């Protein structure tokens, strides 16, 4: 093989980069230095302060501007003669279709979420363009090569399912801080400041629903002439006091559990709070303040250090103050708010509420810094790993351009050396013959065809599980449903009607034995689903009331991958866990404890690597040991990588 550095293929290459974030900035720089003449970048994000510690093409003055464009301008300063085409857009936008992808010699992913990765994988398969995929978390990183027919596709290996918690764990029996965060963020925050009409399990399910439900719903409405402070205290007493009492009344539930302690505001805070001066000043100056974007309960209470763990009283004060600030200073937004990790006041409210609930259930309290990480599903990221991974991506990209199939490698960046290696290359795997994406292997769906509606199938299976955005559903030659801009009016009506119909009552009935054909027109991806009728489902374990099998998806794996805001994932009744699990309960100081397990989740049957991989796993045993003790047997890891355990002895052949 000729020198990588002087490969003639670089000069004629046209490459597509998806993502201009942590990996993207490094990648664009390395591509430019290596002599790539024509680079297109897609990124939908704008620049934020917390990007600046590693996305070195961006400055403070760029905050708020589109990443793709600013990255281009920064690169042109030191390599003015290359072509860089930025797109400030979502890669799932229909304009990035198969024809768009076909113009590139290779696609390089620097993405941060599973959904977009799957989407790009399918487009690359349809356009027959090689894909180099990457991911990092903390000091760990990975680069893989996906070439149609030669190596496995991105979806050949099981992917983590979005982690969800049983509803009752969140609403009634939290045992970990993360449960309190999910409750505060997805239930309480949404109930108070979000869409009021959304289904919400906030009130504890008690035996006699009838008696309490009417009263409970009223409790969240601010009464006429009710002072904001009084309203806040009433909400506080309702959710931390009353609801806990109701839950306690169901004694059966607490036989084997520690009983929670109802907390009322009068027990924690004095009746008239003396330290409200700051607030009064602020609210009297509301007119001037309304233009200020950052309103902070911490600031008005004089709390400074994000890393401190506040006690129950401090959290209670933050809770009431944040509630008040939302209602007074941000009244226009109330009713439409969704939680955003960059919204300081929202983070303060959720952190305080979660901590008060934690205190009630005897769960250790956490700092705002930690709570923000959990609630915002914040990925641990450092510049060095991104730089290393970007270098490895370019090396693989050059091999792909040279069609040097034997040289393709997937590479792991390790935190602790294995077989003396910090960077461990492994030969890529052949395509998985049971992959429903690149081998079109049919899937099986168990569903109650006499109860589930077509809408349930579209939302919970087609969109959430199969990752399709522009689906078309057929039985034989009959069209049941389709999404598109150019549909005729009567068709749209027809489809809308179909959505509300139970499967067995559709114009072309879907019953046990039916083969459904589901297609995504943008991804040019089709899959067949064989339907099996089933009467009953387990309410806790199978809340969707449907079970899809044959999907390369591992059950109950943490999916920290889905922290992107786009394309909201799960629609199941179980609460989606778009939060990261806390690391250990003890210290912020521990280095990337959770992430280590990527490799234990990556054990693969490959003669050459198995030894090395085992080393990695055993090397982490000490940490895991501790972790298991601390966080019981659930999978609590912050797994950002995109490679996951094989179902079992899936023997892989090395590439020829």
């Amino acid at each position, binding site marked *: 093989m000729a020198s990588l550095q002087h490969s003639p293929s670089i000069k004629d290459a046209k490459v597509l980069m998806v993502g201009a974030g942590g990996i993207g900035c490094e990648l664009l720089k390395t591509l430019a230095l290596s002599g790539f003449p024509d680079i297109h970048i897609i990124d939908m994000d704008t620049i934020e302060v917390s990007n600046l510690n*590693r996305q070195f093409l961006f400055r403070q003055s760029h905050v708020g501007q589109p990443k793709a464009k600013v990255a281009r301008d920064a690169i042109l300063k030191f390599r003015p003669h290359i072509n860089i085409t930025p797109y400030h857009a979502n890669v799932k936008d229909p304009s990035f279709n198969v024809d768009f992808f076909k113009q590139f010699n290779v696609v390089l992913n620097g993405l941060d979420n599973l959904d977009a990765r799957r989407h790009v994988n399918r487009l690359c398969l349809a356009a027959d363009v090689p894909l180099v995929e990457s991911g990092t978390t903390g000091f760990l990183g990975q680069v893989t090569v996906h070439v149609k027919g030669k190596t496995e596709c991105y979806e050949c290996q099981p992917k983590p399912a979005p982690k969800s918690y049983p509803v009752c764990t969140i609403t009634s029996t939290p045992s970990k801080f993360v449960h309190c965060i999910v409750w505060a963020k997805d239930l309480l925050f949404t109930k108070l400041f979000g869409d009021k009409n959304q289904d919400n399990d906030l009130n504890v399910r008690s035996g006699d629903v009838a008696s309490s439900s009417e009263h409970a719903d009223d409790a969240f409405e601010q009464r006429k002439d009710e002072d904001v402070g009084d309203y806040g205290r009433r909400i506080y007493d309702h959710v931390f006091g009353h609801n806990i009492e109701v839950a306690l009344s169901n004694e059966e539930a607490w036989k084997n559990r520690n009983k929670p302690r109802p907390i009322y505001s009068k027990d924690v805070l004095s009746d008239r709070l003396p330290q409200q001066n700051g607030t009064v000043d602020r609210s009297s100056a509301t007119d001037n303040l309304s233009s200020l974007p950052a309103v902070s309960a911490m600031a008005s209470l004089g709390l400074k250090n994000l890393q401190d763990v506040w006690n129950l009283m401090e959290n209670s004060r933050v809770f009431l103050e944040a509630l008040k600030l939302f209602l007074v200073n941000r009244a226009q937004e109330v009713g439409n708010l969704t939680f955003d990790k960059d919204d300081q006041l929202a983070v303060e409210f959720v952190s305080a509420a979660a901590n008060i609930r934690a205190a009630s259930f005897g769960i250790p309290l956490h700092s705002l810094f930690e709570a923000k990480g959990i609630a915002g599903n914040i990925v641990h990221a*450092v510049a060095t790993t991104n730089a290393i991974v970007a270098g490895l991506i370019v090396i693989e990209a050059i091999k792909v351009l040279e069609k040097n199939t034997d040289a393709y490698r997937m590479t792991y960046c390790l935190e602790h050396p294995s077989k003396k290696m910090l960077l461990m290359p492994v030969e890529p795997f052949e395509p998985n013959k049971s992959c429903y994406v690149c081998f079109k292997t049919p899937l099986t769906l168990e569903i109650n065809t006499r109860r589930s509606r077509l809408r349930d199938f579209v939302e919970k299976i087609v969109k959430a599980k199969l990752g399709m955005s522009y689906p078309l559903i057929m039985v034989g030659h009959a069209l049941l449903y389709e999404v598109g801009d150019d549909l005729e009016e009567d068709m749209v009506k027809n489809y809308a009607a179909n959505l509300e119909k139970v499967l067995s009552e559709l114009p072309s009935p879907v019953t046990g034995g039916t083969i459904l054909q589901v297609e995504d027109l943008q991804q040019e991806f089709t899959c067949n689903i064989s339907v099996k009728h089933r009467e009953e489902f387990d309410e806790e374990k199978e809340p969707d009331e449907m079970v899809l099998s044959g999907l390369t998806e591992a059950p109950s794996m943490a999916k920290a991958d889905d922290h992107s805001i786009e394309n909201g994932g799960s629609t199941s009744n179980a609460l989606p866990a778009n939060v990261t699990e806390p690391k250990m309960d003890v210290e912020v100081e521990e280095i990337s404890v959770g992430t280590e397990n990527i490799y234990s989740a990556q054990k693969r049957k490959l003669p050459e690597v198995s030894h090395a991989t085992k080393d990695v796993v055993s090397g982490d045993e*000490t940490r895991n040991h501790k972790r298991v*003790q601390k966080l019981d047997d659930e999978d609590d890891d912050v797994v950002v990588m995109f490679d996951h355990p094989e179902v079992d002895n899936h023997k892989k052949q090395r590439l020829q």
Partner: protein
Amino acid sequence: MNSRILQPNMRPLTSPNFTGFSNVIRFVLSLFATGARLRIFRFTSFLSNSIELKVVSAQLTSVRAFDFSIFSSLSFFVRFPAINHYLYRLGLNMDGEELTEQETALYDRQIRVWGADAQRRLSKSHILVCGMKGTVAEFCKNIVLAGVGSVTLVDDRVVTEEALSANFLIPPDESVYGGRTVAEICGDSLREFNPMVSVSVQKGDISSFGGDFFDKFNVVVISCCSAGTKKLINDKCRKLSKRVAFYTVDCRDSCGEIFVDLQSYKYSKKKLGETVECEIQYPRLEDAISVPWKVLPKKVSKLYFAMRVIESFEEAEGRKAGEITIGDLPALLKLRKEICETQSLNESHVPSILLERLVMGAREFPPACAVIGGILGQEVIKAISGKGDPLKNFFFFDAMDGKGIIEDISNEPPNK
């Protein structure tokens, strides 16, 4: 940093005896009496009547700097209500060195990786960097982004096309050069990456700088210098009363090498749930490369031998580092033969094809720079923060096989 920072044991020692507030304070004061400066980092008061106090780190003043060792962390459960505010103030008074809000916001994502304490140590570290080529440019970018205290650059060359090739810190615009050195131009770019890091330039010949100069730094990174200069600076650093972490880094074609000398390095790590104190002894560069080749394990990276052959050639011929071309290959192969004979090593351990690649590619391969500069950045961050196993004592990367390998080349016994 002129104090010794003690890294706490992560497992709190719960002392049920300390049930009174006064006892806690007495104990804390007794630690002060021993010369310790404690930093009380956090106390959790989860129920209104109990307070947990953790001494997260402690500093022993006037001991050799940069010497992280272990001090057990303490945790008390105090059964007194409402004293946490007092403790809070106490904590703040003892540590006026908390990260600012601005720092917490900027470094949010990495603090989640290595913790606030490591971030604080980074912000107080001073790094000297010599030889601004592509790999070092990558390294500088990484540590400036990470938020070290200061970076001092040494490179008096003027900008040439070669200097530009893999270095993204130099804009290709002659109008900004104006007789300025590579270090000065790179410094301008680095300053923009992170306004909280102080970037300065030192002019002069690195080999002429005395001990006083090196004493100002916690980390010294040398690149593009002859083996002789590297050894000289390594020894100057060794003679200082404080420990200076010494690194060399070089990249040729798509290959690179990192050498590390942390002298006697102590750190903590977890083993079977216990925190154990580790100590590693590093050899000097001179001692490491004089280990006879025949006593090295059979599988030592071929790059190690190839780099030594090229180094010997440049030294024998009186060349500057990197001043070697394909025309020198025959003479180089002759030297290889001689060295291998002296060292009783089969020449196949130093393949001709590898030597040829190394002398042909005078220019660095940018992706290899990114990888090697990234690994070096990571190692320097580890050494400053005292967290994680540092590599001992050579690292090699070859883009052709993609392996990033650690080699321990020393006569010293491995990790105790």
